[in-house]
């Protein structure tokens, strides 16, 4: 019953999405009323929503006759993780993907139905059609299982450990798909005639939506890795992580090149707008097809060839539509070296280089295999030598912004003296008192440079200030935790102590339990530092249904540092336990930085929406609206 409803709604989506594309194309070409087209888009949204509700209901009611539930549901799974198991495997997450995509389409359809929007809706509807087709033909989660099993294995145990599981994937999807609207608008602009000139004004708030959700999603994902995977790190330059970083980089560049209406940077704007979505598609192909090995690959699927075909189609379309030479001349304001124009383009060039670097490192194993016959690997060391120095340069460039808005070179230099002194003093003090390594040291200096420059900014509550401050805090936390993190691993008898810097850990006891056949071992540890003693209980769990062992780290978080404990092994007689103790300084600052940066994005978005509502109709070409967001 639920299975039929789900399949029917997917089929309905597969009919309404192309219908919407054709109706919107009619609006764009001939200009009739947009109502039927809007209704078709709304129907596609309804179809996607029905499918999601049907699958969630099947999961919650343990209807194991539905294939996806039989593969990913389980009676022992708590309600929260039953809900989140919708996106713990490919077929279900494709439904969430469709829901977000259709919702964005319906939102975009609400605006004034000019030719720009109509053409953009055609693009979005074609993308929606493709994903509906994927879901119906290649990854239908509603296929029946006969006979229906009595119970299922539940989702991957790693995906049942952390509450971030409920927020992180939906946020990332919202961010990924947010890039489809700027992409569609960039493709629509050359087709839409005079209405096409406004595309940036429409695209920028959407890029902000994408940027905020991506930032929050990536940082939450790092937090999830840190709290669940048990190796004590938050970023490993893994293909799946890289795939989420790529669109973030281009969207960040896009938000900067479109400042001040993006005048004089038309090519940059359209290339960056397209790059975001193309990288999302490429990343989906890389991570969903099993093409590259990843620790986060929870959702391998056979969809690789289809996704790759669609990536190529999208690249081709984007090149044909936006690559055309344009004729109409634009006024050319000269931009001096010290101007927002220079900084913004330098930033874009650097971010694009980082994106190219990360992309090369991610796909190289794939490219090298047919040539050399061996499967090469690109480890974190490569990114530390390439992407990290470039990121420090981006940070330094962000620190220059306070000097861009003042008149006169002397005044600009004066603005930079204090931040510069702060940065240099940081490098000197930290470098002379400890040896954190060049990358971390320059990171500290650049972060201090940015933060000192922003400290005098008035008003403080500006998107650019928050965004840059968040980035600097993030850099500070990353540099500190990489340079000063210490870890040690040892097999302890009960009563023995392990010590790292000023933290010592004593093994109190080892407990075994096996509730409902799920074996778990816990080590009770007394953690003492600075005169106080607390108890931490890291665990090892074994999931017989999936035949996997999962380490559950115990994290004693603090402002200054985290004490991170992992239980690695326990002897058969429970007399000894192998424990890893890590002391990670300033990891909390990373999460705080992510939150501050996201807040900056949300503020920019709120202003953009407000401005959008209050904007009076203006005479055409009177003024290119400074679209929302960060005045540098």
């Amino acid at each position, binding site marked *: 019953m639920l299975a039929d409803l789900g399949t029917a709604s997917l089929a309905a989506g*597969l009919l309404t999405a192309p219908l919407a594309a054709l109706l919107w194309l009619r609006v764009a070409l001939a200009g009739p009323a947009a109502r039927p087209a809007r209704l078709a888009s709304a129907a596609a949204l309804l179809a996607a929503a029905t499918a999601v509700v049907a699958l969630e209901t099947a999961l919650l009611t343990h209807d194991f006759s539905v294939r996806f539930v039989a593969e990913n549901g389980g009676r022992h799974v708590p309600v929260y993780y039953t809900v989140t198991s919708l996106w713990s495997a490919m077929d279900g997450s494709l439904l969430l993907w469709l829901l977000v995509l259709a919702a964005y389409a319906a939102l975009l359809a609400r605006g004034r139905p000019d030719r720009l929007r109509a053409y953009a809706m055609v693009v979005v509807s074609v993308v929606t059609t493709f994903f509906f087709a994927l879901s119906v033909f290649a990854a239908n989660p509603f296929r029946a299982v006969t006979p229906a099993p009595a119970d299922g294995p539940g989702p991957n145990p790693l995906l049942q450990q952390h509450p971030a599981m409920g927020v992180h994937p939906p946020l990332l999807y919202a961010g990924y798909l947010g890039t489809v609207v700027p992409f569609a608008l960039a493709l629509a602009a050359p087709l839409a005639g005079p209405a096409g000139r406004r595309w940036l004004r429409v695209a920028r708030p959407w890029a902000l939506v994408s940027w905020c959700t991506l930032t929050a999603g990536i940082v939450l994902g790092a937090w999830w890795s840190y709290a669940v995977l048990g190796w004590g790190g938050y970023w490993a330059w893994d293909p799946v992580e890289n795939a989420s970083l790529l669109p973030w980089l281009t969207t960040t560049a896009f938000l900067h090149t479109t400042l001040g209406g993006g005048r004089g940077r*038309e090519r940059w704007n359209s290339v960056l707008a397209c790059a975001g979505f193309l990288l999302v598609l490429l990343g989906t192909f890389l991570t969903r097809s099993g093409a590259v090995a990843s620790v986060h690959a929870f959702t391998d699927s056979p969809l690789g060839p289809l996704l790759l075909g669609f990536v190529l189609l999208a690249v081709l379309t984007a090149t044909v539509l936006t690559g055309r030479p344009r004729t109409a001349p634009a006024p050319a304001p000269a931009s001096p070296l010290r101007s927002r124009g220079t900084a913004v383009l330098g930033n874009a060039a650097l971010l694009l280089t980082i994106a190219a*670097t990360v992309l090369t490192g991610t796909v190289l194993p794939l490219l090298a295999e047919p040539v050399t016959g061996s499967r090469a690997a690109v480890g974190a060391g490569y990114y530390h030598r390439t992407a990290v120095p470039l990121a420090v340069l981006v940070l330094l460039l962000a620190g220059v912004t306070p000097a861009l808005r003042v008149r006169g070179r002397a005044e600009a230099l004066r603005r930079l003296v204090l931040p510069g002194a702060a940065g240099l003093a940081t490098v000197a003090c930290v470098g002379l008192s400890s040896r954190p390594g060049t990358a971390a040291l320059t990171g500290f200096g650049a972060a201090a440079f940015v933060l000192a420059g922003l400290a005098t900014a008035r008003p403080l509550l500006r998107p650019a200030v928050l965004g840059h401050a968040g980035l600097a805090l993030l850099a500070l936390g990353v540099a500190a935790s990489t340079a000063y993190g210490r870890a040690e691993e040892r097999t302890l008898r009960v009563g023995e102590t392990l010590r790292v810097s000023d933290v010592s850990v004593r093994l109190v006891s080892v407990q075994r339990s096996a509730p409902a056949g799920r074996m778990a071992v816990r080590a009770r540890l007394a953690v003492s530092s600075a005169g106080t003693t607390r108890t931490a209980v890291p665990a090892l769990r074994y999931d017989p249904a999936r035949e996997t062992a999962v380490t559950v780290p115990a994290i004693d978080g603090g402002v200054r540092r985290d004490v991170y404990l992992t239980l690695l092994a326990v002897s058969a007689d429970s007399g000894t336990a192998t424990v890893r103790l890590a002391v990670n300084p300033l990891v909390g600052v990373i999460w705080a930085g992510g939150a501050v940066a996201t807040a900056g994005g949300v503020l920019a978005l709120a202003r953009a929406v407000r401005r959008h509502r209050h904007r009076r109709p203006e005479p055409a070409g009177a003024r290119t609206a400074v679209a929302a967001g960060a005045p540098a």
Partner: protein
Amino acid sequence: MTRRRLLVVLGLGVLVTAALAGLLRSAGPAGRADPVAEVAAGLRCPACQGESLAESRSPIAASMRQVIADQVAQGREPEQIHRWFVQRYGDEVLAQPPTRGPGLLLWVVPAVALLGGGLAAARTLRPGRREAAGPTVPHGRPRSSRIVWWLTAAGLVALVATVAVAADRLTPPATRPPPADPAVVSLRLAQDLEGQQRYGAAAQLYREALTARPDDDAIRLRLAFALLRAADAPGAERSAREVLGHTPDSPDGLLVLGLAQRTTRPAEAPVTLRRFLAVAPGHPAATEIRRLLGS
């Protein structure tokens, strides 16, 4: 005013010098904490997905780290150690591809991107050479728009049809084997360890290799020999019996069993060893065993 400026410049000069000193000190060789971890970070764990030797917890990684530690203790340079590993296990053990062939792309692409991006930025900034602000494509006439509409409709049908047809031919991705066969790596490492007479550690690696290839009796025999030499006679006996369970007349199985029994059940040992001599009278160890039984 001038004096103040002089003070500022002086202060900044001092800070720049101090910062440079800090950078130099931090970049110096003593800044590196652990030479073994340093070398290990450049090598890949053969049994894991995308982890370096430094961070992996697999037993193979542990023994490879031990090899690195030994070589570091012998005073070998990181490059030499890397070369040693590459010679044994191929380029795949490197955490980063060598800078030749496709590996060059890792450096060429970023360089080209930076150069291209910089040039494009410079071109955009040069006044007078602006690109068009607005796209200007003439609006299609009704006839051509009808063609466009029908073409789009056909394209959509083709898109859906392609997915529908292709979906039936998709095969799920094969589960990829780990980059280098962990069993092979374990075996090589174990043989190295035996060469260094570290039989206990070698036995551990043979066990590791056995979990990957549980049916390989050659490995099981090696394990039995290693255990025998590590003075773990009961373990050696158990492994030998497993081998004999599969191949009752295995000469090597009988040999190890007999030698192990000399410790565990001295009464049965001569019987087993005589059986060994009966099965394989020309075995290289036969003369030694005859001598043993004779005395």
